[in-house]
């Protein structure tokens, strides 16, 4: 594993400017106090009831995602560039999705092989030729960002279907403000609490043109046994909209209603957290008990807005991912601001040959996998695992892409044994409405708690951190040893 970039402490021992006060806080807070803060955080989260159900783990039906009390800090100047890149990327992806379900100009131009779109399992033929309200497909996007050095941000993947995690962004901030009020007083941290307002404004901006009066918005959840149910109820509450399950909705004459104590009430916009396949048993999976019969017809009749639109999976497919720089140039005529991680498309024979030769160094991902499942992390895999994967890959090369193993940046993370660096990523949320794009400064930082691990997914033992965007105009790096207790910080970092 190459030496990786630590976001607080540079290789020469200097403390990066934006982390100055965090470093001082860590150096000056006694271990017992940090321990009691950790315990307090756990208690707060448990009390609030933020839990996360883990796939295939019956005993841990409701588990807490571990929260780390050391904030992740990003300077305003870094953020400004990141935000511009996010806006650009999401704008282009929205145009791309509208295009592939419409005129298909990008396919005609030959910039993108047709079969990679049209034969893709996430391309829904049902949506071909359908226009959606205000031509916006991806209302809520979660873009996963990683750093490998001080200069650049890389997009690891786009999440354009039902991205989750925003409740952690909001609750982490609430908890952090209780745990470290002094740090907040010293830093001027950009607030994130206006996210629900921004989301509501976005949803209101995309009501179907046919709707009259105050729009009725509902959040559609698969129900309380879904792993992200806490987030669904949290958001519905913050938005002040009804949290509905499929059985609460009914469709009559292509109009969607919810069942209320006062009779059926018309619904105009549905922020749905159910996958396409389960939305409507009449249009998609017939065995879906989560969906609403007739919803898809109501949707294509233009009587209800679904956020996100149906079929957005074509935009975040891992095979499409490698073409996003071309997509940005095609629709916007701009150079991409954010970099893509270099990607070998195993469907191309030259790339496949290279990947097969270099499996122990690469990360290989299934194009339709998610949550960190079905992937090979070469440097951490055993010989047997690699051999097994080689077979899978050779059988269905179309199904895979490969990327170099990135030396993800690390952030100091607090453990019982002390403070130690751990790898992190960042998921900012980008909202697109008919009145423009909104991004709140911050996002969800996920941290791989296991030493050396690069997998930050919460279903595989990842944790989260509060993410601070701060004004860094007048801050300077602290020289090595500036904190008076350098031995402690170094010692922890060397673990």
């Amino acid at each position, binding site marked *: 594993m190459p030496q990786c970039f630590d976001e607080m402490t540079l290789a020469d021992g200097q403390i990066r400017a934006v982390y100055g006060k965090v470093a001082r806080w860590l150096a000056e807070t006694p271990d017992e106090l940090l321990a009691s803060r950790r315990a307090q955080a756990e208690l707060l989260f448990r009390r609030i009831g933020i839990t996360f159900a883990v796939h295939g783990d019956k005993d841990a039906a409701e588990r807490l995602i571990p929260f780390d009390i050391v904030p992740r800090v990003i300077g305003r100047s870094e953020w400004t560039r990141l935000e511009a890149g996010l806006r650009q990327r999401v704008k282009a992806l929205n145009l791309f999705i509208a295009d592939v379900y419409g005129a298909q100009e990008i396919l005609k131009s030959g910039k993108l092989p047709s079969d990679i779109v049209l034969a893709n399992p996430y391309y829904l033929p049902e949506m071909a030729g359908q226009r959606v309200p205000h031509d916006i497909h991806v209302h809520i996007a979660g873009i996963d960002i990683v750093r490998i050095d001080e200069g650049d941000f890389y997009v690891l993947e786009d999440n354009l279907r039902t991205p989750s995690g925003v409740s952690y962004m909001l609750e982490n901030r609430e908890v952090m403000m209780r745990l470290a009020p002094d740090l907040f007083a010293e830093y001027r941290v950009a607030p994130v609490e206006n996210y629900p307002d921004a989301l509501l404004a976005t949803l209101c901006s995309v009501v179907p043109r046919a709707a009259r009066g105050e729009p009725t918005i509902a959040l559609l959840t698969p129900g309380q046994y879904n792993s992200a149910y806490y987030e669904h109820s949290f958001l519905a509450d913050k938005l002040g909209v009804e949290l509905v399950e499929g059985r*609460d909705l009914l469709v009559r004459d292509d109009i969607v209603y919810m069942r209320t*104590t006062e009779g059926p009430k018309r619904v105009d916009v549905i922020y749905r957290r159910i996958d396409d396949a389960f939305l409507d048993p009449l249009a998609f999976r017939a065995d879906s008990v989560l969906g609403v019969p007739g919803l898809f017809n109501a949707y294509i009749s233009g009587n209800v807005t679904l956020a996100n639109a149906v079929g957005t999976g074509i935009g975040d497919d891992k095979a499409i991912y490698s073409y996003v720089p071309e997509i940005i140039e095609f629709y916007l005529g701009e150079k991409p601001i954010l970099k893509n991680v270099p990607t070998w498309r195993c469907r191309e024979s030259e790339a496949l040959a290279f990947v097969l030769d270099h499996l122990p160094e690469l990360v290989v991902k299934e194009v339709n996998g998610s949550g960190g499942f079905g992937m090979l992390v070469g440097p951490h895999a055993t010989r047997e695992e690699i051999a097994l994967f080689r077979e899978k890959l050779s059988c269905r090369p179309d199904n895979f892409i490969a990327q170099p193993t990135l030396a993800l940046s690390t952030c100091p993370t607090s453990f019982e044994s002390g403070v130690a660096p751990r790898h992190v990523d960042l998921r900012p949320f980008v909202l697109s409405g008919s009145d423009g794009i909104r991004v709140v400064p911050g996002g969800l930082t996920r941290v791989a708690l296991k030493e050396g691990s690069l997998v930050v997914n919460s279903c595989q033992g990842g944790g989260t951190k509060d993410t601070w965007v701060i004004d860094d105009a007048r801050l300077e790096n602290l020289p090595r040893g500036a904190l008076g207790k350098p031995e402690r910080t170094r010692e922890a970092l060397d673990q």
Partner: protein
Amino acid sequence: MLSRTADNLYWLARYMERADFLARIVDATRRLTAVPTSQTGAGTEWDSTLEASGAAEGFRETHAAAEEASVVDYLMFSTDNPSSIRNCIEKARTNGRAVRTALTVEMWDAINGAWIELKRHVMSNARGYDREQSTRFLEFVKKASLDYDGAAHRTMLRNDAYWFSRLGLYIERADNTARILDVKYNILLPETEAVGGSVDYFQWAAILRAVSALTAYHWVYRESLKPWLIAELLILRPEMPRSLIACYENIVRFLDSIGKAYGHKGIAQRHAHAVFARLMESTTKEIFQSGLHEFVTAFVEDNTRLGTMVGEQYLFD
């Protein structure tokens, strides 16, 4: 509001109230069985406790003898008993979780906190029946119910969510009071006083204790326990918060609030008003003359029917 939300709030309140009632009746029965049988009569208290809590049939299927340890465990912790205290709290939390957005933070804290605490008690109970431990458990249940009730009362907006929640509470409470009267009616008949004398005294006290009315009795009547006065207190005294008439005063009020807010009244309002009117017109004398048992049985049926009507009118369709 969503019908499902109203339904969940209604049942959440019912389960919390039921848990409280079960805790009280177990507590009261334990005190009763601690008195020498020469002073309490037959010694079938655990059987009648099972009857009053509606769990008799389910308990018979376990083929256990109706003794303190087995009955208390069945009522408090059994997962087979759909209405055990444990299941009530579990279901209350499941209902609460399904409608998190309709609960205030304080209500969720109360219900979620109770659920977390419950797990601790379940674990210590797994080590076997322990009277002291179960006393602590019963105290915890009463407090949890009180917490939830207080949180709802103090923090909820006075809108349909509150009214449906309260409706659930009072329909359950009326059912509980009526059930204990139904099971114990034989010792509340006036003529038994001459026959039984002080033998029934501890039974009467146990009834009052089960609806937390022992002190209230003395404040209202300022005399020693008389069975017909106990019946009057639990049926017709509006100042007694668990009496049937007090429950219906509330039920009518909250159903009317819902009807007014929604702009029309229906079958549930008409039925509730009829039941309330009958209670208002009744006297203790008449009730005893026409038969306490018949009166209570008819009431239980009426109350159950109201629950069904509320469901049909607002919740399930």
